[in-house]
């Protein structure tokens, strides 16, 4: 994806704040799917977006707010050129080593039957992924996907 495509004019947007209850994983997917429907995406494109979003939201629930309930901030922007930008932010524990965390199969939660594939899914199912994190302060994941549509 071209750099210019990632900073186009914002045409439409939604913001959602959800407490980190696991039932909100599906609710977040539903809301973001509804927003993306205006681009008339293919089933595959919508599937990719739902899956990438679900990974980011689940990470807030199981990692960022592991022993507590906190707010998850989701913002979705439709940019000029049919690009969707999704930000998922938490004020949880943060990631010590982002480079390491992004590697396939890396997980800090073996007991919870995690596969360590969340970031790999987000990266492969979108056009670009940025992760910024600060230990003890929180994490923001930004995903970009260009929608070719039907």
């Amino acid at each position, binding site marked *: 994806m071209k750099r210019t495509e990632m900073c186009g004019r914002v045409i439409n947007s939604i913001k959602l704040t959800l407490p980190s209850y696991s039932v909100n*994983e599906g609710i977040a997917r539903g809301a973001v799917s509804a927003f993306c429907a205006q681009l008339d995406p293919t089933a595959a494109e919508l599937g990719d977006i739902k*899956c990438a979003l*679900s990974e980011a939201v*689940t990470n807030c629930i199981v990692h960022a707010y592991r022993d507590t309930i906190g707010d998850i901030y989701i913002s979705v922007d439709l940019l000029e050129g049919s690009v969707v930008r999704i930000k998922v932010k938490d004020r949880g524990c943060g990631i010590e080593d982002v480079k390491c965390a992004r590697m396939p199969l890396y997980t800090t939660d073996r007991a919870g039957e995690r596969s360590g594939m969340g970031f*790999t899914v987000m990266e492969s199912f979108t056009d670009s992924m940025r992760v910024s994190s600060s230990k003890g302060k929180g994490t923001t994941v930004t995903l970009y996907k260009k929608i070719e549509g039907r």
Partner: protein
Amino acid sequence: MVKDNKLFSYRINNDALEIKMVGEIDHHSAVSVRADIDAMIFEQRPKRLILDLSEISFMDSSGLGLIMGRYSLVRELGGTLLLRSPTAAVTKILSLAGMERIIKIEKAFEEDDANEEN
């Protein structure tokens, strides 16, 4: 006997335990379905566990964890695992994780037919 969970139904066929999953597999649903599936595995001790994925419309990496966890469990008990008829979306994430190298996947019949025509 464990009751049918609303996220799956099952049947027992000789030495095989067939579980048909329904709907979406994410962290939220995986947590609730896991205990019920494991209870059945311990009760039946199946030679073969078949997870039918044909009715799964959505699955994320929590589903990969669920599948890998059941794979380890049945193997420990001397059985095998087969994944049956994953939908396109599920196939995509299974391939990304290289699941077909570890677990046997049986594709849907329509897909087999389509491939033969090519």
